[in-house]
Protein backbone atom coordinates (compact mmCIF):
# COMPACT_ATOMS: atom_id res chain seq x y z
CA UNK A 1 0.00 0.00 0.00
CA UNK A 2 2.84 2.32 0.83
CA UNK A 3 4.42 1.89 -2.58
CA UNK A 4 1.12 2.79 -4.21
CA UNK A 5 0.89 6.19 -2.56
CA UNK A 6 4.52 6.86 -3.42
CA UNK A 7 3.84 6.27 -7.13
CA UNK A 8 0.73 8.44 -6.98
CA UNK A 9 2.62 11.28 -5.33
CA UNK A 10 5.44 11.10 -7.87
CA UNK A 11 2.96 11.12 -10.75
CA UNK A 12 1.19 14.13 -9.30
CA UNK A 13 4.48 15.96 -8.73
CA UNK A 14 5.42 15.22 -12.32
CA UNK A 15 2.09 16.66 -13.52
CA UNK A 16 2.72 19.86 -11.54
CA UNK A 17 6.20 20.18 -13.08
CA UNK A 18 4.82 19.63 -16.60
CA UNK A 19 2.14 22.27 -16.07
CA UNK A 20 4.81 24.65 -14.80
CA UNK A 21 6.85 23.98 -17.93
CA UNK A 22 3.80 24.52 -20.17
CA UNK A 23 2.87 27.81 -18.52
CA UNK A 24 6.31 29.34 -17.89
CA UNK A 25 6.83 31.22 -21.17
CA UNK A 26 3.18 32.30 -21.36
CA UNK A 27 3.30 33.84 -17.89
CA UNK A 28 6.56 35.53 -18.85
CA UNK A 29 4.95 37.05 -21.94
CA UNK A 30 1.97 38.29 -19.92
CA UNK A 31 4.30 39.85 -17.32
CA UNK A 32 6.55 41.41 -19.94
CA UNK A 33 3.60 42.95 -21.76
CA UNK A 34 3.61 45.46 -18.88
CA UNK A 35 7.25 46.32 -19.53
CA UNK A 36 7.86 50.06 -19.98
CA UNK A 37 11.30 49.52 -21.51
CA UNK A 38 12.19 50.07 -25.13
CA UNK A 39 13.07 46.44 -25.78
CA UNK A 40 10.85 43.52 -24.86
CA UNK A 41 13.56 41.27 -23.42
CA UNK A 42 15.10 43.93 -21.16
CA UNK A 43 12.80 44.56 -18.19
CA UNK A 44 12.65 48.23 -17.22
CA UNK A 45 9.62 49.07 -15.09
CA UNK A 46 5.95 48.24 -14.79
CA UNK A 47 3.46 50.23 -16.84
CA UNK A 48 0.63 50.14 -19.32
CA UNK A 49 2.50 52.15 -21.95
CA UNK A 50 2.86 49.34 -24.44
CA UNK A 51 -0.90 48.77 -24.51
CA UNK A 52 -1.37 52.45 -25.37
CA UNK A 53 1.29 52.22 -28.09
CA UNK A 54 -0.68 49.51 -29.94
CA UNK A 55 -3.37 52.00 -30.92
CA UNK A 56 -0.81 54.37 -32.43
CA UNK A 57 0.77 51.72 -34.64
CA UNK A 58 -1.52 50.87 -37.56
CA UNK A 59 0.95 48.20 -38.78
CA UNK A 60 0.16 46.12 -35.67
CA UNK A 61 -3.61 46.44 -35.79
CA UNK A 62 -3.58 45.86 -39.55
CA UNK A 63 -1.55 42.68 -39.11
CA UNK A 64 -3.91 41.36 -36.43
CA UNK A 65 -6.92 42.17 -38.60
CA UNK A 66 -5.36 40.36 -41.58
CA UNK A 67 -4.78 37.33 -39.35
CA UNK A 68 -8.33 37.27 -37.99
CA UNK A 69 -9.84 37.76 -41.43
CA UNK A 70 -7.67 35.02 -42.95
CA UNK A 71 -8.35 32.69 -40.04
CA UNK A 72 -12.07 33.12 -40.45
CA UNK A 73 -12.18 32.43 -44.20
CA UNK A 74 -9.62 29.62 -44.03
CA UNK A 75 -11.58 27.96 -41.21
CA UNK A 76 -14.83 28.24 -43.19
CA UNK A 77 -13.30 26.68 -46.30
CA UNK A 78 -11.47 23.94 -44.39
CA UNK A 79 -14.57 23.11 -42.35
CA UNK A 80 -16.85 22.93 -45.41
CA UNK A 81 -14.46 20.83 -47.50
CA UNK A 82 -13.31 18.69 -44.57
CA UNK A 83 -16.81 17.97 -43.27
CA UNK A 84 -18.06 16.82 -46.66
CA UNK A 85 -14.96 14.68 -47.16
CA UNK A 86 -15.23 13.23 -43.63
CA UNK A 87 -18.90 12.32 -44.13
CA UNK A 88 -18.10 10.68 -47.47
CA UNK A 89 -15.24 8.71 -45.89
CA UNK A 90 -17.35 7.50 -42.97
CA UNK A 91 -20.63 6.78 -44.79
CA UNK A 92 -19.84 6.19 -48.46
CA UNK A 93 -16.38 4.63 -48.36
CA UNK A 94 -15.70 2.71 -51.53
CA UNK A 95 -12.64 1.75 -53.54
CA UNK A 96 -11.70 5.44 -53.75
CA UNK A 97 -11.48 5.87 -49.96
CA UNK A 98 -7.98 4.41 -49.33
CA UNK A 99 -6.51 6.58 -52.10
CA UNK A 100 -8.18 9.66 -50.72
CA UNK A 101 -6.93 8.81 -47.22
CA UNK A 102 -3.40 8.49 -48.59
CA UNK A 103 -3.73 12.01 -50.03
CA UNK A 104 -4.92 13.31 -46.65
CA UNK A 105 -2.05 11.56 -44.86
CA UNK A 106 0.43 13.04 -47.36
CA UNK A 107 -0.97 16.51 -46.69
CA UNK A 108 -0.58 15.99 -42.94
CA UNK A 109 2.94 14.54 -42.99
CA UNK A 110 4.43 17.10 -45.37
CA UNK A 111 6.36 19.62 -43.26
CA UNK A 112 5.03 23.14 -43.48
CA UNK A 113 8.24 24.46 -45.01
CA UNK A 114 7.73 22.16 -48.02
CA UNK A 115 4.16 23.47 -48.48
CA UNK A 116 5.57 26.97 -48.21
CA UNK A 117 8.29 26.64 -50.83
CA UNK A 118 5.87 24.81 -53.15
CA UNK A 119 3.10 27.37 -52.87
CA UNK A 120 5.31 30.39 -53.55
CA UNK A 121 6.25 29.51 -57.17
CA UNK A 122 2.77 28.04 -57.72
CA UNK A 123 1.04 31.27 -56.68
CA UNK A 124 3.39 33.28 -58.88
CA UNK A 125 2.64 30.91 -61.76
CA UNK A 126 -1.15 31.07 -61.26
CA UNK A 127 -1.21 34.81 -60.76
CA UNK A 128 1.19 35.93 -63.45
CA UNK A 129 1.67 33.20 -66.06
CA UNK A 130 -1.84 31.75 -65.97
CA UNK A 131 -3.37 35.21 -65.67
CA UNK A 132 -5.56 34.37 -62.66
CA UNK A 133 -5.04 37.71 -60.94
CA UNK A 134 -7.06 36.58 -57.91
CA UNK A 135 -3.92 34.73 -56.74
CA UNK A 136 -2.03 38.03 -56.52
CA UNK A 137 -4.37 38.98 -53.67
CA UNK A 138 -2.67 38.62 -50.28
CA UNK A 139 -5.69 37.33 -48.39
CA UNK A 140 -6.47 34.73 -51.07
CA UNK A 141 -2.90 33.45 -50.95
CA UNK A 142 -2.92 33.19 -47.15
CA UNK A 143 -6.35 31.52 -47.07
CA UNK A 144 -5.28 28.89 -49.61
CA UNK A 145 -2.05 28.18 -47.75
CA UNK A 146 -3.76 27.91 -44.37
CA UNK A 147 -6.66 25.75 -45.52
CA UNK A 148 -4.69 22.70 -46.74
CA UNK A 149 -3.59 21.08 -43.47
CA UNK A 150 -6.84 22.10 -41.75
CA UNK A 151 -9.00 20.47 -44.44
CA UNK A 152 -7.27 17.15 -43.79
CA UNK A 153 -7.58 17.57 -40.00
CA UNK A 154 -11.30 18.42 -40.15
CA UNK A 155 -11.87 15.41 -42.43
CA UNK A 156 -10.16 13.11 -39.86
CA UNK A 157 -12.11 14.52 -36.92
CA UNK A 158 -15.49 14.35 -38.68
CA UNK A 159 -14.78 10.87 -40.00
CA UNK A 160 -13.79 9.49 -36.60
CA UNK A 161 -16.82 11.06 -34.96
CA UNK A 162 -19.22 9.64 -37.53
CA UNK A 163 -17.67 6.16 -37.53
CA UNK A 164 -18.45 5.99 -33.82
CA UNK A 165 -22.16 6.67 -34.46
CA UNK A 166 -24.54 4.02 -35.73
CA UNK A 167 -26.04 4.65 -39.16
CA UNK A 168 -29.57 3.66 -38.03
CA UNK A 169 -30.81 7.24 -37.67
CA UNK A 170 -29.93 8.08 -41.25
CA UNK A 171 -31.46 4.81 -42.44
CA UNK A 172 -34.66 5.57 -40.56
CA UNK A 173 -34.82 8.99 -42.23
CA UNK A 174 -34.35 7.35 -45.63
CA UNK A 175 -37.12 4.86 -44.85
CA UNK A 176 -39.38 7.79 -44.05
CA UNK A 177 -38.68 9.18 -47.53
CA UNK A 178 -36.40 12.07 -46.52
CA UNK A 179 -34.56 13.20 -49.67
CA UNK A 180 -30.72 12.88 -49.51
CA UNK A 181 -30.10 16.60 -49.05
CA UNK A 182 -32.59 16.90 -46.20
CA UNK A 183 -31.16 13.75 -44.64
CA UNK A 184 -27.73 15.35 -44.70
CA UNK A 185 -28.78 18.71 -43.23
CA UNK A 186 -31.29 17.41 -40.68
CA UNK A 187 -29.71 14.17 -39.48
CA UNK A 188 -26.05 13.77 -40.43
CA UNK A 189 -24.97 17.38 -39.91
CA UNK A 190 -26.41 17.74 -36.38
CA UNK A 191 -24.77 14.42 -35.45
CA UNK A 192 -21.32 15.62 -36.50
CA UNK A 193 -21.79 19.20 -35.26
CA UNK A 194 -19.43 18.88 -32.25
CA UNK A 195 -16.72 17.55 -34.57
CA UNK A 196 -17.41 20.31 -37.10
CA UNK A 197 -17.18 23.00 -34.41
CA UNK A 198 -14.01 21.53 -32.94
CA UNK A 199 -12.50 21.21 -36.41
CA UNK A 200 -13.42 24.75 -37.34
CA UNK A 201 -11.94 26.11 -34.14
CA UNK A 202 -8.78 24.12 -34.69
CA UNK A 203 -8.56 25.42 -38.27
CA UNK A 204 -9.00 29.00 -37.06
CA UNK A 205 -6.27 28.78 -34.42
CA UNK A 206 -3.91 26.91 -36.76
CA UNK A 207 -4.38 29.76 -39.21
CA UNK A 208 -3.75 32.42 -36.56
CA UNK A 209 -0.57 30.54 -35.63
CA UNK A 210 0.67 29.92 -39.14
CA UNK A 211 4.06 31.51 -39.66
CA UNK A 212 6.02 29.51 -42.21
CA UNK A 213 3.57 29.32 -45.11
CA UNK A 214 2.48 32.91 -44.43
CA UNK A 215 6.04 34.23 -44.56
CA UNK A 216 6.44 32.75 -48.03
CA UNK A 217 3.14 33.46 -49.75
CA UNK A 218 2.32 36.85 -48.19
CA UNK A 219 2.08 39.94 -50.38
CA UNK A 220 3.35 43.20 -48.89
CA UNK A 221 0.39 45.16 -47.59
CA UNK A 222 -1.35 42.07 -46.20
CA UNK A 223 1.16 40.92 -43.59
CA UNK A 224 -0.42 38.59 -41.03
CA UNK A 225 0.43 38.95 -37.33
CA UNK A 226 2.94 36.06 -36.97
CA UNK A 227 4.94 37.34 -39.95
CA UNK A 228 4.98 40.80 -38.37
CA UNK A 229 6.36 39.24 -35.17
CA UNK A 230 8.91 37.23 -37.15
CA UNK A 231 10.25 40.36 -38.82
CA UNK A 232 10.35 42.02 -35.38
CA UNK A 233 12.49 39.11 -34.10
CA UNK A 234 15.04 40.11 -36.71
CA UNK A 235 14.83 43.86 -36.28
CA UNK A 236 14.33 44.13 -32.49
CA UNK A 237 11.38 43.08 -30.34
CA UNK A 238 9.36 45.76 -28.60
CA UNK A 239 6.98 45.23 -25.64
CA UNK A 240 3.90 45.91 -27.81
CA UNK A 241 4.34 42.43 -29.27
CA UNK A 242 3.77 40.94 -25.83
CA UNK A 243 0.80 43.23 -25.15
CA UNK A 244 -0.94 42.20 -28.36
CA UNK A 245 -0.27 38.55 -27.49
CA UNK A 246 -1.79 39.01 -24.04
CA UNK A 247 -4.93 40.51 -25.55
CA UNK A 248 -5.11 37.75 -28.15
CA UNK A 249 -4.65 35.08 -25.48
CA UNK A 250 -7.60 36.51 -23.54
CA UNK A 251 -9.73 36.57 -26.71
CA UNK A 252 -8.74 32.98 -27.56
CA UNK A 253 -9.62 31.82 -24.06
CA UNK A 254 -13.00 33.54 -24.34
CA UNK A 255 -13.64 31.86 -27.71
CA UNK A 256 -12.58 28.48 -26.28
CA UNK A 257 -14.87 28.92 -23.30
CA UNK A 258 -17.73 29.71 -25.65
CA UNK A 259 -17.12 26.61 -27.77
CA UNK A 260 -16.81 24.42 -24.67
CA UNK A 261 -20.12 25.86 -23.46
CA UNK A 262 -21.83 25.14 -26.80
CA UNK A 263 -20.42 21.62 -26.91
CA UNK A 264 -21.49 20.93 -23.34
CA UNK A 265 -25.00 22.10 -24.14
CA UNK A 266 -24.90 19.72 -27.10
CA UNK A 267 -24.40 16.98 -24.51
CA UNK A 268 -20.70 16.22 -24.65
CA UNK A 269 -18.70 15.62 -21.49
CA UNK A 270 -15.45 17.58 -21.08
CA UNK A 271 -13.48 14.46 -21.90
CA UNK A 272 -15.49 13.96 -25.09
CA UNK A 273 -14.80 17.55 -26.11
CA UNK A 274 -11.09 17.05 -25.61
CA UNK A 275 -11.28 13.82 -27.56
CA UNK A 276 -13.05 15.52 -30.44
CA UNK A 277 -10.54 18.36 -30.43
CA UNK A 278 -7.66 15.92 -30.11
CA UNK A 279 -8.87 14.09 -33.17
CA UNK A 280 -9.61 10.85 -31.34
Amino acid at each position, binding site marked *: MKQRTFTDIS*LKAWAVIVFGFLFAPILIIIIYSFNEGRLLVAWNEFGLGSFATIATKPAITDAVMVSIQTGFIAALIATALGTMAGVALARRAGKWAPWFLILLVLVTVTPEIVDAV*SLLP*WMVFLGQDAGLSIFDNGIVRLVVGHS*LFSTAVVAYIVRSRLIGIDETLEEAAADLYAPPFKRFTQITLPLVMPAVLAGGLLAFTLSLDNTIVSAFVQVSGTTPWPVYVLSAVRSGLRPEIASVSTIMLLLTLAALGLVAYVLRRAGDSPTDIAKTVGGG
Partner: protein
Amino acid sequence: MKLPGFALAIPAWAWLFAFFVAPVALVVWFSFGYKPGIFGTHANDVLSFDRYAEALSPTFFSTFQNTLWVGVVGTLICLAISIPFAYWLAFKAPVARRGILLAMVMIPFWTNFLVRTIGWQIILAPSGLLSTALQSIGVLDEPLEILFTRTAVLIGVVYNYLPLMILPMFVAFDRVSLPMREASKDLGAGRWSTFLNVTLPLAKPGIIVGILLVYIPLMGDYITATVLGGAKGNMAGQMVANQFQTAQNWALGSAMAVVLVLTILTTVLIAALVSWLATWPLRASQRLVLGDKS
Protein backbone atom coordinates in the same frame (compact mmCIF):
# COMPACT_ATOMS: atom_id res chain seq x y z
CA MET B 1 -30.88 10.43 -58.80
CA LYS B 2 -28.17 8.80 -56.73
CA LEU B 3 -24.78 10.45 -56.41
CA PRO B 4 -21.67 8.28 -56.37
CA GLY B 5 -20.14 7.70 -52.92
CA PHE B 6 -17.18 9.97 -53.45
CA ALA B 7 -19.28 12.97 -54.62
CA LEU B 8 -18.99 14.70 -51.26
CA ALA B 9 -15.21 14.22 -51.24
CA ILE B 10 -14.74 15.83 -54.67
CA PRO B 11 -14.46 19.48 -53.49
CA ALA B 12 -11.77 18.61 -50.92
CA TRP B 13 -9.99 16.40 -53.44
CA ALA B 14 -10.00 19.15 -56.09
CA TRP B 15 -8.82 21.78 -53.58
CA LEU B 16 -5.95 19.63 -52.32
CA PHE B 17 -5.02 18.65 -55.85
CA ALA B 18 -4.85 22.26 -57.05
CA PHE B 19 -2.97 23.63 -54.03
CA PHE B 20 -1.03 20.67 -52.68
CA VAL B 21 -0.35 17.98 -55.27
CA ALA B 22 0.31 20.36 -58.17
CA PRO B 23 2.67 22.76 -56.32
CA VAL B 24 4.59 19.94 -54.64
CA ALA B 25 4.95 18.20 -58.01
CA LEU B 26 6.33 21.47 -59.38
CA VAL B 27 8.97 21.56 -56.62
CA VAL B 28 9.95 17.96 -57.35
CA TRP B 29 10.34 18.98 -61.00
CA PHE B 30 12.51 22.00 -60.04
CA SER B 31 14.77 19.75 -58.00
CA PHE B 32 16.02 18.08 -61.19
CA GLY B 33 16.98 21.41 -62.75
CA TYR B 34 19.70 23.97 -61.98
CA LYS B 35 20.21 27.66 -61.21
CA PRO B 36 21.01 29.57 -64.40
CA GLY B 37 23.28 32.54 -63.65
CA ILE B 38 22.92 35.08 -60.86
CA PHE B 39 19.45 36.39 -61.64
CA GLY B 40 17.59 33.18 -62.53
CA THR B 41 16.03 31.07 -59.79
CA HIS B 42 15.62 27.79 -61.68
CA ALA B 43 15.86 26.22 -65.13
CA ASN B 44 14.87 22.75 -66.30
CA ASP B 45 16.27 22.42 -69.84
CA VAL B 46 18.98 20.06 -68.57
CA LEU B 47 17.77 17.46 -66.09
CA SER B 48 20.08 15.78 -63.58
CA PHE B 49 20.44 14.53 -60.01
CA ASP B 50 23.23 17.09 -59.44
CA ARG B 51 21.17 19.21 -57.02
CA TYR B 52 20.65 16.14 -54.84
CA ALA B 53 24.39 15.52 -54.79
CA GLU B 54 24.84 19.18 -53.82
CA ALA B 55 22.16 19.00 -51.13
CA LEU B 56 23.93 15.99 -49.59
CA SER B 57 27.44 17.46 -49.88
CA PRO B 58 29.32 17.93 -46.55
CA THR B 59 28.31 21.62 -46.25
CA PHE B 60 24.62 20.85 -46.08
CA PHE B 61 24.76 17.24 -44.88
CA SER B 62 25.75 18.27 -41.35
CA THR B 63 22.56 20.35 -41.15
CA PHE B 64 20.46 17.32 -42.07
CA GLN B 65 22.33 15.35 -39.39
CA ASN B 66 21.66 18.08 -36.84
CA THR B 67 17.97 18.21 -37.82
CA LEU B 68 17.67 14.45 -37.42
CA TRP B 69 19.37 14.63 -34.00
CA VAL B 70 17.04 17.38 -32.77
CA GLY B 71 14.05 15.54 -34.29
CA VAL B 72 14.78 12.16 -32.71
CA VAL B 73 15.98 13.43 -29.32
CA GLY B 74 13.16 15.98 -29.13
CA THR B 75 10.53 13.33 -29.88
CA LEU B 76 12.03 10.95 -27.29
CA ILE B 77 12.01 13.68 -24.62
CA CYS B 78 8.37 14.49 -25.46
CA LEU B 79 7.58 10.78 -25.13
CA ALA B 80 9.34 10.53 -21.76
CA ILE B 81 7.49 13.59 -20.43
CA SER B 82 4.10 12.57 -21.85
CA ILE B 83 3.78 8.93 -20.78
CA PRO B 84 3.66 9.56 -16.99
CA PHE B 85 1.74 12.80 -17.50
CA ALA B 86 -0.96 11.34 -19.77
CA TYR B 87 -1.17 8.30 -17.47
CA TRP B 88 -1.78 10.57 -14.50
CA LEU B 89 -4.36 12.58 -16.44
CA ALA B 90 -6.24 9.49 -17.61
CA PHE B 91 -6.19 7.40 -14.42
CA LYS B 92 -5.20 9.49 -11.40
CA ALA B 93 -6.49 13.02 -11.94
CA PRO B 94 -9.89 13.80 -10.38
CA VAL B 95 -12.54 12.97 -13.00
CA ALA B 96 -14.55 16.15 -12.40
CA ARG B 97 -11.55 18.36 -13.10
CA ARG B 98 -10.26 16.43 -16.10
CA GLY B 99 -11.87 18.78 -18.65
CA ILE B 100 -10.22 21.84 -17.14
CA LEU B 101 -6.86 20.07 -16.85
CA LEU B 102 -7.07 19.10 -20.53
CA ALA B 103 -7.93 22.67 -21.49
CA MET B 104 -4.88 23.77 -19.50
CA VAL B 105 -2.68 21.41 -21.53
CA MET B 106 -4.09 23.04 -24.65
CA ILE B 107 -3.61 26.67 -23.59
CA PRO B 108 0.01 26.90 -24.78
CA PHE B 109 -1.13 25.18 -27.94
CA TRP B 110 -3.64 28.00 -28.54
CA THR B 111 -1.07 30.73 -27.88
CA ASN B 112 0.93 32.02 -30.80
CA PHE B 113 3.78 29.67 -31.62
CA LEU B 114 6.28 32.49 -32.17
CA VAL B 115 5.34 34.48 -29.12
CA ARG B 116 5.68 31.53 -26.75
CA THR B 117 9.07 30.79 -28.28
CA ILE B 118 10.04 34.40 -27.59
CA GLY B 119 8.96 33.75 -23.98
CA TRP B 120 11.65 31.06 -23.83
CA GLN B 121 14.16 33.52 -25.24
CA ILE B 122 13.46 35.78 -22.24
CA ILE B 123 13.72 32.88 -19.78
CA LEU B 124 16.91 31.40 -21.22
CA ALA B 125 18.82 34.66 -21.83
CA PRO B 126 22.17 34.96 -19.95
CA SER B 127 20.69 37.80 -17.87
CA GLY B 128 17.26 36.15 -17.83
CA LEU B 129 15.18 34.50 -15.13
CA LEU B 130 16.59 30.99 -15.17
CA SER B 131 20.17 32.22 -15.16
CA THR B 132 19.54 34.64 -12.27
CA ALA B 133 17.65 32.00 -10.29
CA LEU B 134 20.34 29.36 -10.76
CA GLN B 135 23.06 31.85 -9.78
CA SER B 136 21.26 33.03 -6.68
CA ILE B 137 20.81 29.49 -5.32
CA GLY B 138 24.44 28.83 -6.13
CA VAL B 139 24.08 26.16 -8.82
CA LEU B 140 25.93 28.36 -11.29
CA ASP B 141 28.84 30.75 -10.75
CA GLU B 142 28.47 32.64 -13.98
CA PRO B 143 25.59 33.57 -16.34
CA LEU B 144 23.87 30.69 -18.10
CA GLU B 145 25.16 30.40 -21.67
CA ILE B 146 22.36 28.33 -23.15
CA LEU B 147 20.55 30.69 -25.52
CA PHE B 148 21.52 30.27 -29.19
CA THR B 149 22.74 26.72 -28.65
CA ARG B 150 21.34 23.37 -29.74
CA THR B 151 20.08 22.78 -26.18
CA ALA B 152 17.94 25.91 -26.37
CA VAL B 153 16.48 24.74 -29.68
CA LEU B 154 15.76 21.36 -28.08
CA ILE B 155 13.94 22.97 -25.12
CA GLY B 156 11.98 25.12 -27.58
CA VAL B 157 10.83 22.29 -29.84
CA VAL B 158 9.96 20.00 -26.92
CA TYR B 159 7.87 22.82 -25.48
CA ASN B 160 6.19 23.73 -28.77
CA TYR B 161 5.12 20.20 -29.70
CA LEU B 162 4.50 18.62 -26.28
CA PRO B 163 0.69 19.20 -26.26
CA LEU B 164 0.48 17.36 -29.59
CA MET B 165 1.95 14.28 -27.87
CA ILE B 166 -0.04 14.55 -24.63
CA LEU B 167 -3.51 14.84 -26.23
CA PRO B 168 -3.63 11.68 -28.38
CA MET B 169 -1.80 9.76 -25.66
CA PHE B 170 -4.40 10.80 -23.07
CA VAL B 171 -7.20 9.75 -25.43
CA ALA B 172 -5.49 6.40 -25.94
CA PHE B 173 -4.99 5.75 -22.19
CA ASP B 174 -8.55 6.87 -21.53
CA ARG B 175 -9.84 4.21 -23.91
CA VAL B 176 -8.14 1.42 -21.97
CA SER B 177 -11.09 0.44 -19.85
CA LEU B 178 -10.79 0.00 -16.12
CA PRO B 179 -12.25 -3.57 -16.20
CA MET B 180 -9.39 -4.58 -18.49
CA ARG B 181 -6.78 -3.29 -16.03
CA GLU B 182 -8.63 -4.72 -13.05
CA ALA B 183 -8.85 -8.09 -14.72
CA SER B 184 -5.10 -7.98 -15.16
CA LYS B 185 -4.63 -7.22 -11.47
CA ASP B 186 -7.10 -9.92 -10.44
CA LEU B 187 -5.08 -12.41 -12.41
CA GLY B 188 -2.10 -11.54 -10.25
CA ALA B 189 -0.25 -8.98 -12.37
CA GLY B 190 1.48 -6.19 -10.47
CA ARG B 191 1.18 -2.49 -11.27
CA TRP B 192 4.20 -2.45 -13.55
CA SER B 193 3.24 -5.66 -15.22
CA THR B 194 -0.31 -4.37 -15.84
CA PHE B 195 1.09 -1.13 -17.25
CA LEU B 196 3.61 -2.83 -19.54
CA ASN B 197 1.49 -5.78 -20.70
CA VAL B 198 -2.05 -4.38 -20.75
CA THR B 199 -2.26 -0.58 -20.68
CA LEU B 200 0.69 0.28 -22.89
CA PRO B 201 -0.05 -2.21 -25.72
CA LEU B 202 -3.73 -1.18 -25.78
CA ALA B 203 -2.76 2.50 -25.92
CA LYS B 204 -0.22 1.90 -28.70
CA PRO B 205 -2.21 3.46 -31.59
CA GLY B 206 -2.58 6.75 -29.72
CA ILE B 207 1.06 6.77 -28.74
CA ILE B 208 2.06 6.27 -32.38
CA VAL B 209 -0.19 9.15 -33.46
CA GLY B 210 1.47 11.33 -30.80
CA ILE B 211 4.96 10.42 -31.98
CA LEU B 212 4.07 11.25 -35.60
CA LEU B 213 2.34 14.51 -34.64
CA VAL B 214 5.50 15.63 -32.85
CA TYR B 215 8.23 14.21 -35.04
CA ILE B 216 6.99 15.40 -38.45
CA PRO B 217 6.42 19.12 -37.75
CA LEU B 218 9.53 19.12 -35.56
CA MET B 219 11.70 17.96 -38.46
CA GLY B 220 10.39 20.76 -40.68
CA ASP B 221 10.44 23.46 -38.02
CA TYR B 222 12.68 26.43 -38.50
CA ILE B 223 10.96 29.15 -36.50
CA THR B 224 12.08 27.76 -33.14
CA ALA B 225 15.63 27.41 -34.45
CA THR B 226 15.59 30.99 -35.74
CA VAL B 227 14.41 32.43 -32.41
CA LEU B 228 16.40 30.23 -30.02
CA GLY B 229 19.20 28.72 -32.06
CA GLY B 230 20.98 31.64 -33.67
CA ALA B 231 23.56 30.49 -36.19
CA LYS B 232 24.57 27.35 -34.31
CA GLY B 233 21.21 25.63 -34.07
CA ASN B 234 20.82 25.15 -37.82
CA MET B 235 17.82 23.14 -38.99
CA ALA B 236 17.02 21.82 -42.48
CA GLY B 237 13.94 24.04 -42.64
CA GLN B 238 16.10 27.15 -42.30
CA MET B 239 18.38 25.86 -45.04
CA VAL B 240 15.47 25.29 -47.46
CA ALA B 241 14.03 28.72 -46.66
CA ASN B 242 17.45 30.33 -47.25
CA GLN B 243 17.75 28.79 -50.70
CA PHE B 244 14.37 30.19 -51.69
CA GLN B 245 14.51 33.57 -49.97
CA THR B 246 18.17 34.59 -49.82
CA ALA B 247 20.25 32.52 -52.24
CA GLN B 248 17.43 32.48 -54.84
CA ASN B 249 18.45 28.97 -55.84
CA TRP B 250 15.07 27.28 -56.19
CA ALA B 251 16.55 24.18 -57.80
CA LEU B 252 18.82 23.44 -54.83
CA GLY B 253 16.13 24.47 -52.34
CA SER B 254 13.67 22.09 -53.98
CA ALA B 255 16.15 19.22 -53.83
CA MET B 256 16.71 19.96 -50.12
CA ALA B 257 12.95 19.98 -49.51
CA VAL B 258 12.59 16.60 -51.23
CA VAL B 259 15.52 15.20 -49.21
CA LEU B 260 13.86 16.47 -46.02
CA VAL B 261 10.55 14.74 -46.84
CA LEU B 262 12.37 11.53 -47.80
CA THR B 263 14.38 11.66 -44.55
CA ILE B 264 11.16 11.93 -42.54
CA LEU B 265 9.46 9.10 -44.43
CA THR B 266 12.51 6.82 -44.21
CA THR B 267 13.05 7.36 -40.50
CA VAL B 268 9.35 6.76 -39.77
CA LEU B 269 9.46 3.52 -41.79
CA ILE B 270 12.68 2.38 -40.07
CA ALA B 271 11.19 3.14 -36.64
CA ALA B 272 8.04 1.18 -37.55
CA LEU B 273 10.12 -1.76 -38.75
CA VAL B 274 12.37 -1.74 -35.67
CA SER B 275 9.45 -1.63 -33.25
CA TRP B 276 7.71 -4.40 -35.18
CA LEU B 277 10.83 -6.58 -35.04
CA ALA B 278 11.52 -5.74 -31.40
CA THR B 279 8.06 -6.86 -30.29
CA TRP B 280 8.18 -10.01 -32.43
CA PRO B 281 9.35 -12.35 -29.62
CA LEU B 282 6.80 -10.77 -27.28
CA ARG B 283 3.94 -11.34 -29.70
CA ALA B 284 5.08 -14.89 -30.42
CA SER B 285 5.08 -15.75 -26.70
CA GLN B 286 1.68 -14.13 -26.15
CA ARG B 287 0.20 -16.07 -29.02
CA LEU B 288 1.51 -19.25 -27.42
CA VAL B 289 -0.17 -18.41 -24.10
CA LEU B 290 -3.48 -17.75 -25.82
CA GLY B 291 -3.13 -20.98 -27.76
CA ASP B 292 -2.64 -22.98 -24.55
CA LYS B 293 -5.86 -21.70 -23.09
CA SER B 294 -8.16 -22.39 -26.02
